[in-house]
């Protein structure tokens, strides 16, 4: 049977959900069965997305593997799926991280069934956003993803989970309100939600709209979209939900949250904001760049000031995602130029890389937390000799996150900065200062955890920390391999991204 003749995208999208539905009927006590079913069924989308990756033709413009099904005919919405270079990269990231996160959650013992089911639903939600070519479907999945995440944080999170989860929910829902209204307006205007049609026609709308000049309306909706996505990214000053949510979420939740959910926001910028509002984006590129730089700098400062390891990593996400936005802002400012393209390439690659490294970092924090039941940096110190393997992995991943040349983070951040420099020189210069602090907080974390005087508490008796387990290494291994691979030889992925960006903008 030819794999390519299957409706690959729907399979990728719905296999996790179907698996989850099947698992509903499993007895709750069969923890092992549930774990392995979840893990294996999340590997299927991964396998299928590899098939996609190798059969994807980067030179072909437009979307590939397109599928379209009737959904809500009355208002002109259909289940329209497809991938291009941008979404394919993201799909790959998602399908890769989900099995790893599930593997990482094997340590969960409380209500495993519900946990795994939610996790698989979450995967469908995230993938749907990346695959959707219909605005309404995009929104549907955008919102659906919230629910499992809310419960993952709320039910399996740590002490302050109630506050964190509700904050996460309210922030995102409030943010997407503008998005919803904007989508409704577009739907009313064009009687369809098909993204391709809307992008073409929307840029041709002229004259008055709702009794206001089209330009004004576009500006308002532009900001509605920007706020929705900026909250998700998150961009300063909308980022305050993130440290709470990340810190309180269970380890795998944080991995997915940092690894994929944040990318949804950035993806929204690339998929919707730039194509739909090129003029407005250009007009406000400076403002976007300002927000980006603020995220980079304040994110870095804030991260440096943390004593909670997980919070520190959470703030580092704000910092790193700032670079993505910077790249986007640069591209918005000078659409079509070579510099813009470089910046975009950097931004997309940064999304991918940050997905890998942030997931890794959160996982590693989780590993140590499970053993020590504390995340306070001050409580550690000099534990490298006790957990050498863990220490090495932590250092490797932090370096990737810090942007050490030779590892993935360097490539993408370099590209962003290289591309943005001629376009938004001052902002980029300030961002470089932020980069400096990135180094500072990562090193601070490593020093306080691994080096310095040994906290004897962890060396003896019941408190002695055990080194990382093979299962946990198995989670980290693919991440590390990719981080190194992209760092050394990024062409395989950049080629796909670059061609996609060329065709898109």
């Amino acid at each position, binding site marked *: 049977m030819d794999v390519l003749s299957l409706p690959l995208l729907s399979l990728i999208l719905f296999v996790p959900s179907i698996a989850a539905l099947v698992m509903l009927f499993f007895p709750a006590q069969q923890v092992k069965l549930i774990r392995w079913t979840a893990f294996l069924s999340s590997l299927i989308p991964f396998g299928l997305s590899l098939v996609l990756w190798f059969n994807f033709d980067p030179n072909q413009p437009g979307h590939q593997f397109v599928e379209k099904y*009737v*959904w*809500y*005919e*009355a*208002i002109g919405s259909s289940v329209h799926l497809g991938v291009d270079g941008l979404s394919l990269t993201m799909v790959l990231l998602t399908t890769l991280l989900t099995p790893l996160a599930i593997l990482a959650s094997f340590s969960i013992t409380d209500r495993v069934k519900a946990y795994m089911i939610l996790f698989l639903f979450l995967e469908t939600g995230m993938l749907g956003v990346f695959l959707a070519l219909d605005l*309404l479907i995009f*929104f*549907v*999945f*955008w*919102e*659906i993803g*919230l*629910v499992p995440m*809310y419960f993952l944080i*709320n*039910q399996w999170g740590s002490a302050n989970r*109630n506050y964190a*989860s*509700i904050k996460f*929910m*309210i922030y995102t*829902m*409030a943010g997407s*309100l503008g998005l*919803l*209204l904007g989508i*409704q*307006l577009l*739907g*009313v205007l064009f009687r369809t939600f098909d993204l391709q049609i809307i992008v073409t026609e929307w840029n041709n709308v002229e004259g008055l709209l*709702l009794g206001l000049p089209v330009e004004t309306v576009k500006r308002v909706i532009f900001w509605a979209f920007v706020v929705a996505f900026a909250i998700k990214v998150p961009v300063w000053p909308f980022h305050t939900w993130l440290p709470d949510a990340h810190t309180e979420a269970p380890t795998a939740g944080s991995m997915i949250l940092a690894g994929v959910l944040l990318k949804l926001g950035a993806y929204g910028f690339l998929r919707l904001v730039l194509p739909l509002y090129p003029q407005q984006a250009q007009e406000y590129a400076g403002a976007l760049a300002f927000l980006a730089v603020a995220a980079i700098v304040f994110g870095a400062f804030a991260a440096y000031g943390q004593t909670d390891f997980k919070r520190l990593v959470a703030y580092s996400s704000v910092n790193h995602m700032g670079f993505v936005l910077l790249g986007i802002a640069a591209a918005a400012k000078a659409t079509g130029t070579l510099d813009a393209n470089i910046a975009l390439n950097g931004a997309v690659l940064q999304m991918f890389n940050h997905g890998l490294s942030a997931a890794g970092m959160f996982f590693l924090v989780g590993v140590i937390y499970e053993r020590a039941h504390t995340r306070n940096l001050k409580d550690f110190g000099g534990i490298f000799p006790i957990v050498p393997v863990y220490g090495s992995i932590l250092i490797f991943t932090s370096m990737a996150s810090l942007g050490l040349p030779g590892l993935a983070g360097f490539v993408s951040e370099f590209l962003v900065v290289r591309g943005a420099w001629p376009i938004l020189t001052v902002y980029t210069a300030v961002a470089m200062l932020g980069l400096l602090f990135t180094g500072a907080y990562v090193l601070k974390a490593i020093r306080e955890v691994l080096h310095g005087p040994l906290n004897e508490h962890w060396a003896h008796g019941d408190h002695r920390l055990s080194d990382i387990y093979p299962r946990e290494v198995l989670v980290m291994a693919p991440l590390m391999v990719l981080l190194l691979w992209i760092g050394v030889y990024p062409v395989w992925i950049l080629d796909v991204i670059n061609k996609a960006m060329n065709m898109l903008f």
Partner: protein
Amino acid sequence: MNFPVLSLIVFTPMVAAVLILLMPAEKRNETRALALAAATFALLLSIWIYATYLIRGLSGYQFVEEYEWLPALGLKLIFGVDGMSAPLVLLTGIVMFTGVLISWGIDDPHTPTGIQERPREFFAFLFILASGVFGVFASLDLFMLFFFYEIAVFPMYLLIVIWGWVVTREYAAMKLTLYLFIGSVISLVGALAMYFQSGMNTFDMRLLEQANFPTEFQIFWFLPVFLGFAVLGGIWPFHNWSPDGHVAAPTAVSMFHAGVLMKLGAFAALRVGIMLLPEGAKYWSWLIMTLAAIGVVYGAYIAFVQTDFKYMVGFSSVSHMGLVMLGFSTLTREGLLGSGIQMFSHGVMTALFFAVVGMVYDRAHTREIPELEGMHKVMPFASIGFIIGGLVSMGMPGFSGFVAEFPIFMGVWKTQWFVAVITSISIVITAGYIMRNVRMVFFGEIPEKFHGHLPPLTFMDELAIVFLCLFMVGLGLFPSLMVPMVQTGVDHILNLLGGA
């Protein structure tokens, strides 16, 4: 003439009520079984009607039956359903069935669920109510619509007063009955005016639709007719009866009440107000829209500040029914479509809400949200059901609420975009209170005082919850299970409105 399926469904509960009353009072379980059998039969009939309509791709008034009733006045008993009412007939079947399941009391003082006091009378009155509801949805004769409408209202009083919440039942039942009665008689006056104005000596709404009443007449009578019915639809500022009524009513009655009766008001307002007086509707749509928009936001806000679980749900109904009215007021394809679906979706959702609230209250004997905690541990089914209902309620995509609310907002965009912007605030507020209450009521640790006397759910309870959830998720994932059908109804209304 076809098989008279609509008369059958209208009179099944009525006949069942009489049979139930004839049961000896001691045969409590037999009475319940009889009630369940009748409800199941009605449910199957309603599914059959719905499915036939959908699968055959029908449009217009179907399953029509016509009997002469009072020739002197041109009064006939005409039954028939269209794309708007068929889903509501199904809804009634669903709520009736689950209502009986929920009320299935067990004669055991340690399992305080369902109706244990005089089940015979309870089911009899409930079924008379159901009969009236089916009658309204199926009537194509204006007079008979009123007839059944009133039949649906009066058992409510007894159901609340006898089996309701001791503290407020007398006040709430009286308030509810009087409000609804006022509303309906005011509409009735309008309906009689239409009858005489048309000069056609008929109450047949299919003919009255074509009557082309003078514009001034329509403008004068639209408001009394529409608002009279809308009282039952819970339109602001006449919503006052509804939260009190919901709270005081016993569980199954709350389900019926919020799930079906409020739809009765909205549906009648549509069918009599908008469809028969389209020019009036156009003239006054701004006012209806304003009231509805206020109701949407106000209801959500008041629900947000409630600490009583049931009041919270009650006010959320005000908010959601406001959306139905909002959709009506747009007089657009999208708005009406959305309202049609919202009536069904909200009906199922709120029935589920009240069912869950009832289960919690039966066990914990309090509805104060701060006092409840950890109910998930005792009744996981209820908590998951409530969560799904909550997601529907906040318009989460993938659930029926989204399928309904999205077109409503699109319709509002088309008419008054700023109203769309303002009312959308309610979505966030709703998300806020639903999430907060889910967390406070269902999660956390069970308080000390409840240890040991929180019996688990019965099989009937669980069945009801699963059954209701199926419809919400099914419709959310596959809108085409209902949309094309409602669409045909909307097309007809748009024709009457002059292809607006």
